[in-house]
Each structure stands twice: as C-alpha cells, then as structure tokens.
C-alpha cells in the first residue's frame, strides 16, 4: 500500500496511463495478429476449402479433404506411423538422457557448468548441422560402416530408412529432455537415498524404488516436450529419411511446397494440433494419477 502511494505522484493520471499501456503493447499485438492469429485462423478455414481435380483451389466450403483423410488408408497409416515412431523416439530419448541428467544433477562447480554448456551447445547449433553430422556417421561411406568394414563385418544400411531417422532425432531431442529432467530433479533428496542405502538396499533397488518415482514429474514433462517436437520435426526425417520415411510433418511440407495442395496440408496441420491436444490431456491425466 505504502509503495503504491509513494510512486503515485510520479505516475500519469488514469486516462493517459491507459493510453500509455495501449501504445506500449500495440506493436507486439500487431505482429501477433498479422503473423500468428490471422494465419492460424485462416489455416483452420483453409482445411474446408475445395480442391478441384486439376489441383486448383476454390473458396467453397466442403468436407471433402477431411473425408479423404478418413477414407484413404494411406493417411490412417501415416498417422499411426507418425505417432508410434514419435513415441518410440521419445522413449529412446528418455533412456539416453536420464543418465546425463542424473550425473549433471550430482556434479557441482565448474565441472557442472562445463557439462551444462556441452548439453546446451547442441541446442544452439542448427538442426541442419547436426543432421549433417549424422549423415557423416551413418552413410554408406561413414564412420559406422567403415568401422564395420575394418572389422570384416558386412555393411549395414543405416540411412534413408527408419533407423537413421530414429538415431538422428533421438540425439537432436536429447538436450530438451535433459533440461526438462533437470528441472524436475529438485525433489531428489540425497538423504532419502542414504537412508535406503543404510537400511541395506542395493543400488538398483534404490534407483527403482526411490530415484525413479521421485523424478516422474520431470520424466512426464520431458516426454511430452519430446513427443510434441518429434511429431512436428521434418528437417531430420527429410534428410536422414531421404524421402523413404513418411511422417505427418514431412507430408505437410510436401503438400505445401511440392504438390501445392494447401487444403490437405492445412487439414494435416490441424490433425497435428489434435494429436498435441491428446498428448497434453494424457500428460495432465498421468500427472494427476501419480501425484
């Protein structure tokens, strides 16, 4: 109260204060409206536009695109494929990220800062660069196949298929998972682990019965984040999949840029958002059941 009265004389009167607020917020509101609200609303409308057999688009409302999505088994397969591949990648990302997050949580000082920089720096490097690195490792003349050859083993096809996409995307998503896990590790109290250890629990039991349950909120958050990112990423699936791996995001890009069927691209986009909504509902339910 005293704070409010202290600065009251310096503040402009009520009317010009409102004018000031409007003036300060107008630019961001304008860009939000032009670059976000209008395009997204337009996208929803676009999914009901009619596409003529010639490929031309007419501004006539129809449910044809939606009907095509339901009846054409290609799209049903695409959706199931996208969701299951993304789920698999999310799980793999969790398994790969958990040891790093736990190790980071337990280290301190300069060492921790260095490790944190190592986790964050891939995040600040373009996905194109990191995917290129994976091509160098996985291609026919890459690191893995040259190593296999040196050992006298037959070469393995690791690119232009699901294996490559899975490996690449898992690595790309790891920093997000690690940061989400770290945010949720605050509840981990070393004294509880010590107590369990004193009472004779072996290390794996301590991990299974104490560490894992306490870090479930972080796990859930990380999984939600990575699933959402996996469903919508297309740079890595495009480059490592080489047009042989069909996912929702790559199909949206192809329809938008190559085939120019915007109503179909828009409909698939709305579908991605529906999947996101579903993931979010599942996440809140899971969290409520656990806590």
């Amino acid at each position: 109260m005293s704070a409010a009265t202290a600065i009251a004389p310096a503040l402009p009167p009520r009317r010009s204060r409102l004018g000031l607020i409007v003036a300060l917020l107008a630019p961001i509101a304008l860009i939000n409206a032009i670059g976000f609200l209008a395009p997204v609303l337009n996208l929803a409308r676009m999914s009901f536009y009619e596409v003529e057999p010639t490929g031309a688009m007419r501004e006539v409302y129809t449910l044809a695109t939606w009907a095509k999505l339901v009846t054409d088994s290609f799209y049903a397969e695409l959706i199931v494929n996208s969701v299951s591949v993304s789920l698999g990648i999310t799980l793999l990302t969790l398994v790969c990220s958990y040891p790093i997050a736990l190790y980071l949580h337990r280290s301190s000082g300069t060492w921790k800062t260095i490790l944190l920089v190592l986790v964050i720096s891939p995040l600040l490097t373009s996905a194109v660069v990191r995917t290129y690195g994976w091509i160098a490792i996985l291609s026919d003349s890459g690191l893995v196949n040259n190593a296999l050859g040196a050992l006298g083993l037959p070469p393995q096809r690791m690119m232009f298929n699901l294996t490559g996409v899975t490996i690449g995307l898992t690595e790309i998503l790891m920093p997000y998972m690690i940061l989400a896990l770290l945010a949720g590790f605050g509840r981990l109290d070393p004294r509880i682990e010590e107590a369990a250890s004193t009472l004779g629990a072996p290390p794996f039991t301590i991990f299974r019965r104490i560490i894992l349950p306490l870090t479930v909120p972080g796990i859930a958050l990380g999984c939600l984040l990575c699933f959402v990112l996996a469903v919508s990423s297309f740079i890595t699936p495009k480059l490592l999949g080489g047009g042989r791996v069909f996912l929702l995001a790559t199909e949206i890009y192809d329809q938008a840029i190559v085939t120019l069927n915007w109503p179909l691209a828009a409909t698939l986009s709305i579908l991605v958002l529906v999947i996101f909504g579903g993931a979010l509902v599942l996440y809140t339910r899971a969290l409520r059941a656990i806590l």
Partner: protein
Amino acid sequence: MDERPVSLTLKILAGVMFAFLLAPLIVVLPISFSGDAFMAFPPTSWSVKWYPAIFANSKMTAAFWTSLVLATVVTTISLAIALPAAYALVRLKPAGAEVLSSLFTAPLLLPTIVLGLAILIVFARLGLLATFPGLVLAHLVVTLPYALRVLTTALATLPIAVEEAASTLGASPFTVFRRITLPMMKSGLIGTTALCFLVSFDEVVLSIFMTGPRISTLPVAMYHHVEQQADPLVAALSVLLVVLSLVVVLVVDRTSGLAKTFVK
C-alpha cells in the same frame, strides 16, 4: 555439500550418452579438413581447401549475409518491441496482463511446421513470400515470445525499491526507466539479444516456407545443399557456425551467467 558419490555405473552410462550427444558435432571437425571430393569418414586425404571453397560459393555467401543482416534486424526490432511490452505488462499491470502475455507467447506453443504453413498461406496473398520484410516478420513471430518471456522475468525479479526511491526524489517515469531500470536489467538484455540472434540465425523451418530462388538464409541454403549432395563444404561451414554459437554462449556466460539465462 550434501552430495552422494557418483557410482561408476552412472559415470560410464553418462559418458557413453555424452559421446552419443556430441558425436555429430565432433565428426564435423575432421571432415572439414578432408581432401576428398565426396564425404567419407574417415577421410582418405587431408586438405584445408573446403574453407576457402565456402567463400567461393556465391550461393552460400549471399545466404550468409542475408542471415546475418536478418538476425541483426530481427534482434533489434525484437528488443525495441518486447522491452516496452514487458514494461507495460510488469510495471503498469493492465487488466488481463496474464491473458495478454499468454497470447503473446502462444506462437511458441505451435509447432513451427504448422506456423510456417499458416504464415506461408497468408503471406502468399500479401505478396510477402521470398522477400526480406516477409522473412523479418516471420522471424519476429518466434523471437518476440522469447524476448518477452526473458524480459518480463528480468523486470519482475528487479527490486522495485530503487525505482520507487528515484521516483520519490522527483525523477520522471522515463528517467527512472532509463537511468535505473535499464542498467539493472543488463543481464536480461544481453540474454535476450543472444537468444533472439541465435533463434533467428538458426531458424530453418519457418524460413524454408518463406524463401525462394531469389532470397535464401544460410540454414536453408545448407539444407538444400545437403539434400542434393553431402560434400565436406557443409562440414567446414558447420565448424564456423559451431564456433560462432560457442562464442555467443561464452559471451553470455561471462556477462550474465549461462545458468541464469537458459535454465530457470
């Protein structure tokens, strides 16, 4: 410190996973010194020819300048727009401030591929496709939410007592902001600048929808290059980009603390 000793199993597991995480960034370095015409790992011969080759590639140099100017313009506009907005939301507390800030940060919740498609359709009608202003506007849609979020946090955590003292002593609100608030927000401003610059400079999904043969950004040019042929040129370019990101990270760490900026 109440730490538990780290078990050997965890050390090994974490080490292996770190190697996996950093592998694609590490292999790029030796490949950039390859003497081969095509990408192979390990390279069969060594050379530094791919570094000058970047500067001889007119597509890449044009795209680099576009990206650099674009990131600079986008960062400047982001600060100029988000700073007043953050001030209005935090200090003037209008009715519905929370709803407004969720609306302004909502673009981050949307997958960029959906946002990119949505912007493509509207911008095509406005004639903004494959133009510099179109790229600026598209990038602002994603950098502004980041800028607003970091700046509102920075403003909200400032001790208000100093501002009140200055105000009681007769300083006008603008003077208080310029002489007291702004200097105290230094680390937040540096963090915002670095974040906006890197987000814009690395942005590829939105840009891929917005660029064309006439204008391209560096990540998009690299994407199309890799799509057609994976030669060591991109490796040399990648090394330069990784060094650039590291420099930005180190500068941010020195001036404001990395942990404070990126891990909340």
